[in-house]
């Protein structure tokens, strides 16, 4: 405690913002006076349990029950993980601390995404697997402010881009246009100790991809939620609007590709085996088999919103079928198995609006299940995985169908816990129902105002 107070003194911390995420990935927490934050340790502060049982529009989950919810409403707790305490950098008084949602006894809640990921990674550790992972964040940046776009009902949005038609990728003139925004963003990231590797102009107008440096899973997901919050704050401070909505109507949506590899406690790759012709260890083969096998069930977690499914278009850089391939960017899993240092799996399905804790949890749950059951790996997709004839390998491409597949996935139910999986599926069905019954035009080929108003600023 003395060390903690010394650190807070050293960094002039007067207020701490606590931060957890609900199932949708929305950041929730409080700004606490330093003395109060310290007095609440180690259990953290209370908050209404509806904080974890509320949708993007603030509607409480009223047609789904989970045994961890309070019988007559009540409090849950946000237990700070002091390893995540950092200073804001921009606000000289402010510190940030990420935490887990617990019950009054301090036990982690099944509905807490961060706790779920910890549970899965602990299982991996028990088996001797340590993961290293990273995410590619894609998002769009617009000239207008959030309030401008709200007032204009999200019409006539001006991408920050050198060209306003067509596009390209890696275009340096487009990059130059977004540089002031990105420069501010990476400056703040560095203030907070967030390691990044690079950023570039992406295929959509005003779309940027930001690559983060690899970290262990929980720290990586913590970093993603922090960077997403930071993108929002930089947007507000610079008078622009940025969004992680998965699709804004153009060809190219925003995804969140995840790379991961496994190693042992000594840091040696568990995916690489130089005695094999394909350099893939048996573990990598079974691990991949599990992820591929559970892919249809995992879609719901990886594509959580109605808008996520607008990404699913042939030849639009989004996987459409249950598939894997060596260095194949059209498959759901792109394996890179060539070297001890670089052997990894790139999972290309997640939408930019994904909750990163759940994305990693469902992916690793699949991998673990594959190893536990020694699942065989389906044949590699040798050619392009787009424009294929309809088959049973087609992924579910709407939120309702994906939720159905999740509920029926016995492996995911076993690994993640059936109550959590069924609760999740019901939240997605509620999202589907809201979309259809709250005024959105379900037949619209483009994102509806309902989607913009629900997701643009929050995902």
């Amino acid at each position, binding site marked *: 405690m003395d060390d903690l107070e010394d650190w807070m003194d050293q960094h002039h911390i007067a207020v701490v913002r606590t931060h957890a995420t609900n199932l949708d990935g929305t950041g929730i927490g409080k700004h606490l006076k330093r003395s109060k934050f310290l007095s609440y340790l180690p259990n953290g502060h209370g908050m209404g349990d509806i904080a974890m049982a509320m949708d993007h529009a603030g509607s409480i*989950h*009223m*047609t*789904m*029950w989970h045994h961890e*919810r*309070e*019988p*007559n*409403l009540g409090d849950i707790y946000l237990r700070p993980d002091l390893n995540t305490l950092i200073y804001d950098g921009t606000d000289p008084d402010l510190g940030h601390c990420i935490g887990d949602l617990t019950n009054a006894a301090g036990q982690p809640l099944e509905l807490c995404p961060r706790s779920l990921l910890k549970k899965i990674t602990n299982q991996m550790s028990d088996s001797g697997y340590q993961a290293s992972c990273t995410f590619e964040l894609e998002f769009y940046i617009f000239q207008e402010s959030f309030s401008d776009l709200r007032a204009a009902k999200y019409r006539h949005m001006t991408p920050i881009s050198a060209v306003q038609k067509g596009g390209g990728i890696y275009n340096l003139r487009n990059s130059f246009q977004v540089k002031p925004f990105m420069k501010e963003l990476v400056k703040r990231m560095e203030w907070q100790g967030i390691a990044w590797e690079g950023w570039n102009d992406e295929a959509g107008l005003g779309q940027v991809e930001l690559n983060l440096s690899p970290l262990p899973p929980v720290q990586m997901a913590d970093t993603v939620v922090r960077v997403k919050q930071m993108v929002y704050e930089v947007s507000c401070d610079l008078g622009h609007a940025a969004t992680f909505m998965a699709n804004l109507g153009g060809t190219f949506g925003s995804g969140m590709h995840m790379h991961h590899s496994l190693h042992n406690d000594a840091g040696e790759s568990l995916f690489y085996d130089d005695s094999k012709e394909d350099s893939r260890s048996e573990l990598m083969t079974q691990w991949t088999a599990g992820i591929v096998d559970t892919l249809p069930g995992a879609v719901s977690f990886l594509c959580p919103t109605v808008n996520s499914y607008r990404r699913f278009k042939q030849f639009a850089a989004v996987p459409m079928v249950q598939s894997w391939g060596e260095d194949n960017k059209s498959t759901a899993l792109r394996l890179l198995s060539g070297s001890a240092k670089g052997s990894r799996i790139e999972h290309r399905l997640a939408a930019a609006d994904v909750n990163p804790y759940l994305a990693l949890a469902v992916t690793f749950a699949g991998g673990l299940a594959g190893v536990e059951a020694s699942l065989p790996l389906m044949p590699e997709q040798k050619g392009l995985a787009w424009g294929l004839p309809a088959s049973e390998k087609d992924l579910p491409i*709407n939120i*309702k*169908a994906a939720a*159905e597949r999740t509920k029926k996935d016995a492996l995911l139910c076993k690994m993640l816990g059936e109550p959590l999986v069924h609760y999740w599926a*019901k939240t997605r069905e509620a999202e*589907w*129902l809201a979309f*259809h*019954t*709250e*005024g*959105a*035009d*379900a*037949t619209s080929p483009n994102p509806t105002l309902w989607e913009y108003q629900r997701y643009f600023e929050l995902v």
Partner: protein
Amino acid sequence: MIVTTEVDPEPLVRIFAAKFTAALHQPNYAALMTKSQGKFSLQSKTDPQAITVTINTEGLYVSSGVDRSSAIVIHLNIADPSASPKVEGLLRHPLYASAMGKLLEFPEIDWADGLKRLWDQYQDFPGMPDGITAKNTDEDRQLSVGSSDEPVYLEGSAANLAEAFSGGSPLLQLLFEGKLKGHYRFQHIVVLSDITLQMMLGAD
């Protein structure tokens, strides 16, 4: 006669398919439906929701959207069924429009029968209360199902109780709107709202 829907049906398709399916249990209604072959559409006045109902010798089929070949299109306020609908095609097909109007007057469900049926079907559903007591305030009549020292207690008009117990609206919506009142635990009302929503959407 059987009721079917398009694959992956939208909520309004499911809601009407469930209503038709339930109504077919009434012999008079089933006879009316058999005589009502043709195609008509329902279009919401307040949002883009729409369905088309096709009745032929094979059964009744519900799909989403307005089919251009529909004889009539009924524009209605889905949130307020008592509001007068506007009927497109009325002059060209007056008899058909009249018959479809009758078809959309779904048979009234007795609230007590509805409660008994709900209990029979869902009493073992996870999280259900041990008992439910409902009071019809029109007639000051009360019915209890199950056995509990602390049942969920609901009171309201016969029509609103019937609405809840037949899956006409999710229970919670009726409580929010003040159409029903009662004593209950939050958990129980969430679970009952889940059940009534499933009934409304025609559970898979």
